[in-house]
């Protein structure tokens, strides 16, 4: 097969290699009205891939609530934008880079961060915060350590170099991720609400500029790769690895923001998956125009490149910019100042056709509407999977005594080893960084602070995708409330298995509906997101993992609330009632009963009351500590509060459900006794139970157990790094 620009005859085998089904190829012939050229076949293959077309997911995503008084830009652009008042807006999105990260963890994760940063600064926003949501396989799986080291180093390598702080994230482990890790990256930027840039074309005659790094042969067919399962033979796809260059991206960021100060730009679009093809087609689609690209003018990094490669390359750190004629010099000046490639490669046309030429000769000419609107859209069959077994009675003579084992659990233990590798302070606005319920980052020169959290819980979702996903939304909002913030928007990254399996499609649809219900109930619009399907290896699917990232706003004097007990003498109370739900809990998994039972339900009214109370308490300065209950329930949350070294005496005991149940709608608070009356007044209508007092260096529980805080700290802090260092160093994990 010659990847050239000559008119090959298209064979069935070529069609199949391009990931198009025979039916899809027939559809292509129908909408195009003729046989495609080889170049055009490549173009269709990426534009109609799951990754770019959302062909399996699109009809479901329409059910999400995407509007609200703050929403300036919802799903459909590179990232969503919400209004923060006073002329400012937050622009954010989350995106997956799962498949590339499994193949080459360092570069896969690094380019994932690079991609999400571009999505945000393309909109004119300066990136101010990153988050990462990670899933890996069993600790004793031979690949896990190398993947953890490589992925973390890759995120650090890219984000640190860019000077954008990574302020929060999450890391969890499950056997279903053994052969398919998840790497979801989130970025938020700040933009003046009247200076938002879109990927559009404006009028015919406008000029198309290519800026950034040169194009090489990397990542050709990456989008198609992200749209198929892994299995035997996927090793061969390896040469497509994209290598990130955060240095180039930093220059690109500064150059774009500099050019955006002026008025030259009509439209701007980053080149992400499917590179030049999808970026130019998307722009033309949004602008309702045609586009002419002279491919021979594209800056190239390698010799002998042909149109097919130029169109499909996923080389990183590149952008397309459309400007009005006469403004060319401004573009050249800015990008040359930053030592970046810049070339005028085409123009906006009025005939609605997306055209590419190569040294004057036409190599592709497809009506834009054919590429954007006629992509297949599937309502794939759904079927509920066979019911999972109920949760059996767990025999545990000493549930309190299980606390150290819970603190050592890979899903609960301290992940400092990871986030110490991330610069979480650059920008000097990080008030609360990683390790807290939510991060809190100041906006300089204002009284505004943005809070960030990401959460997903495959353990719950697999038991009931609707309820599990709704619970995650509630948990995100609760985490934001624990730093005093009110949610302003959500971005989601739907990581699921093979959508052609009716059970997976059912999981997906139910998860979307659960998210939609909870978002409506809590008043949080979904403003951006991403879908990653085919997360399976040799037929084994991952836990359904809707990755959620929520952003909150806090306004006022800097909130003084911590997630850990800062001192003795504080009263500690549980807001939101006693737990009992062990379905999908970390506790149940420790006994081998994950995938048993049902997840905790969400009581929206109680949830809202709790969040309001938390914000009121923090706003009034009545509490010194707020920490929500999630993985590991009450006892784990209480122990986590002791991790600065301060213990206490607490009337906490009872059965495993009360200790480790993962029921929603609950949080711990600690306050000085003199604030007791105020605290009771502000928590009216919320279940309130005093648990005891802080003090000393022992965590005493129900007169039966006393743990030296230092010992608990050691278990919690050391188990993750000890596991990482126990195995042979399986990777150098460096760029």
């Amino acid at each position, binding site marked *: 097969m010659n990847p050239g620009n000559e008119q090959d005859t298209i064979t069935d085998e070529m069609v199949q290699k391009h990931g198009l089904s025979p039916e899809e190829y027939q559809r292509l012939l129908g909408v195009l009205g003729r046989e495609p050229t080889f170049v055009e076949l490549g173009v269709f293959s990426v534009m109609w891939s799951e990754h770019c077309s959302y062909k399996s997911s699109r009809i479901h995503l329409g059910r999400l609530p995407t509007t609200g008084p703050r929403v300036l830009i919802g799903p459909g652009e590179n990232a969503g934008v919400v209004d923060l008042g006073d002329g400012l807006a937050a622009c954010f999105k989350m995106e997956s880079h799962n498949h590339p990260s499994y193949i080459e963890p360092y570069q896969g994760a690094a380019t994932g961060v690079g991609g999400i940063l571009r999505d945000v600064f393309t909109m004119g926003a300066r990136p101010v915060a990153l988050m990462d949501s990670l899933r890996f396989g069993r600790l004793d799986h031979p690949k896990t350590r190398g993947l953890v080291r490589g992925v973390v*180093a890759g995120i650090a390598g890219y984000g*640190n170099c860019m000077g954008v702080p990574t302020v929060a994230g999450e890391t969890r482990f499950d056997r279903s991720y053994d052969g398919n890790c998840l790497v979801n990256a989130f970025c938020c930027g700040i933009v003046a609400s009247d200076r938002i840039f879109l990927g559009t074309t404006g009028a015919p005659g406008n000029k198309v500029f290519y800026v950034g790094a040169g194009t090489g042969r990397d990542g050709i067919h990456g989008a198609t790769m992200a749209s198929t399962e892994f299995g035997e033979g996927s090793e061969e796809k390896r040469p497509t690895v994209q290598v990130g*260059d*955060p240095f180039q991206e930093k220059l690109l960021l500064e150059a774009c923001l500099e050019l955006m100060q002026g008025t030259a730009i009509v439209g701007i679009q980053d080149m992400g998956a499917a590179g030049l093809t999808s970026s130019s087609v998307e722009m033309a689609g949004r602008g309702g125009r045609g586009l002419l690209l002279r491919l021979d003018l594209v800056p190239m990094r390698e010799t002998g490149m042909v149109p097919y490669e130029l169109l499909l390359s996923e080389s990183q750190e590149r952008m397309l910019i459309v400007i009005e004629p006469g403004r060319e010099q401004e573009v050249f000046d800015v990008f040359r100042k930053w030592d970046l490639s810049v070339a005028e490669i085409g123009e906006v046309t009025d005939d609605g056709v997306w055209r590419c030429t190569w040294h004057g000769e036409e190599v592709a000419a497809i009506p834009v509407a054919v590429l954007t609107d006629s992509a297949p859209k599937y309502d794939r069959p759904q079927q509920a999977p066979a019911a999972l077994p109920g949760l059996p009675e767990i025999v545990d003579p000493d549930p309190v005594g299980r606390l150290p084992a819970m603190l050592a659990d890979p899903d609960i233990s301290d992940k400092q080893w990871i986030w110490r590798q991330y610069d979480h*302070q650059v920008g000097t*606005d990080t008030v609360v960084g990683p390790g807290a319920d939510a991060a809190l980052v*100041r906006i300089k020169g204002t009284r505004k602070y943005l809070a960030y959290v990401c959460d997903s819980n495959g353990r719950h979702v697999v038991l009931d995708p609707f309820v599990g996903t709704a619970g995650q939304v509630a948990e995100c909002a609760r985490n934001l409330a624990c730093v005093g913030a009110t949610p302003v928007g959500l971005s989601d990254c739907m990581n699921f298995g093979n959508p052609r399996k009716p059970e997976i499609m059912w999981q997906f649809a139910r998860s979307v509906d659960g998210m939609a219900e909870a978002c409506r109930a809590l008043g949080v619009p979904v403003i951006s997101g991403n879908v990653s399907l085919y997360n399976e290896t040799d037929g084994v699917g991952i836990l359904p993992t809707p990755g959620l990232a929520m952003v909150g706003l806090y306004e006022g004097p800097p909130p003084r609330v911590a997630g850990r007990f800062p001192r003795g003498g504080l009263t500690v109370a549980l807001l939101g009632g006693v737990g009992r739900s062990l379905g999908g809990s970390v506790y149940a998994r420790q006994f081998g009963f994950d995938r048993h039972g049902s997840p905790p339900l969400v009581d929206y009214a109680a949830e809202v009351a709790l969040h309001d109370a938390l914000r009121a308490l923090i706003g009034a300065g009545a509490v010194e500590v707020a920490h929500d209950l999630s993985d590991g329930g009450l006892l784990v949350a209480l122990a986590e509060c002791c991790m600065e070294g301060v213990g206490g005496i607490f009337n906490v005991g009872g059965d495993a459900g009360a200790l480790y149940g993962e029921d929603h709608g609950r949080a711990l608070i600690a306050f000085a006794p003199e604030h007791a009356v105020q605290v009771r007044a502000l928590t009216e209508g919320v279940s309130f139970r005093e648990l005891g007092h802080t003090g000393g260096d022992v965590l005493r529980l129900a007169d039966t157990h006393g743990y030296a805080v230092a010992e608990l700290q050691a278990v919690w802090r050391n188990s993750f790094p000890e596991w990482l260092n126990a195995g042979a160093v399986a990777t150098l994990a460096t760029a």
Partner: protein
Amino acid sequence: MTARVAVITFPGSNCDADLRHAVGLFGMQAVAVWHKDSTLPAVDAVLLPGGFSYGDYLRCGAIARFSPVMVDVVRFAGRGGPVLGVCNGFQILTECGLVPGVLLRNSGLTFQCRDVNLRVEGKPTPFTGGLVGATLRLPIAHAEGNWFADAETLARVEGEGQVIFRYLGNPNGSVHDIAGVSNSAGNVVGLMPHPERYVEADVGGTDGAGVFRSLSASCFGALPLKAPGATA
């Protein structure tokens, strides 16, 4: 009259804005200077920011050192002008030989972002006047901050009071726990920790403030000086 402080932006610098912000908080005027500028404007001090100049490719600071503006920075330093390099700025200063030693990969090999405790010592400098003897809690954020010098250089640096900051609890394997050094005249200082990150109580702490207060004072007076309200 306000002191004017140049903050150089190299391609890949990412703490330049943070430094300018900090400079402004202490009543000085930050002047942004582009690395391609052939001359330095009239300033009282020059700051080299942290970040990843040229991606930290090859060796940290190796390529940035050849930026056109560095010719003038070296001249400015030679005339006794105060020059401070933070993190990547420190690496650039070692690469161009304005301060001794080199910065190797951290002994733990990974990037580390954490607080460290430091003792201020050595000869008085424009950045530490009045701080000598103090203990500061400042953040580090680097992968290559493991300061190293051959035995002879090390002896000289120690003997002549050029060790300006020393870790209490070594985070990266640097020889003699050295976190920051000066040139022999004392007007050029490089350090790995980031004083500009801890200048506001709500964001991390204020232990970096003394460095900027010292600079502000030294721009107007002779050395050694007492920094007003230093943490000492």
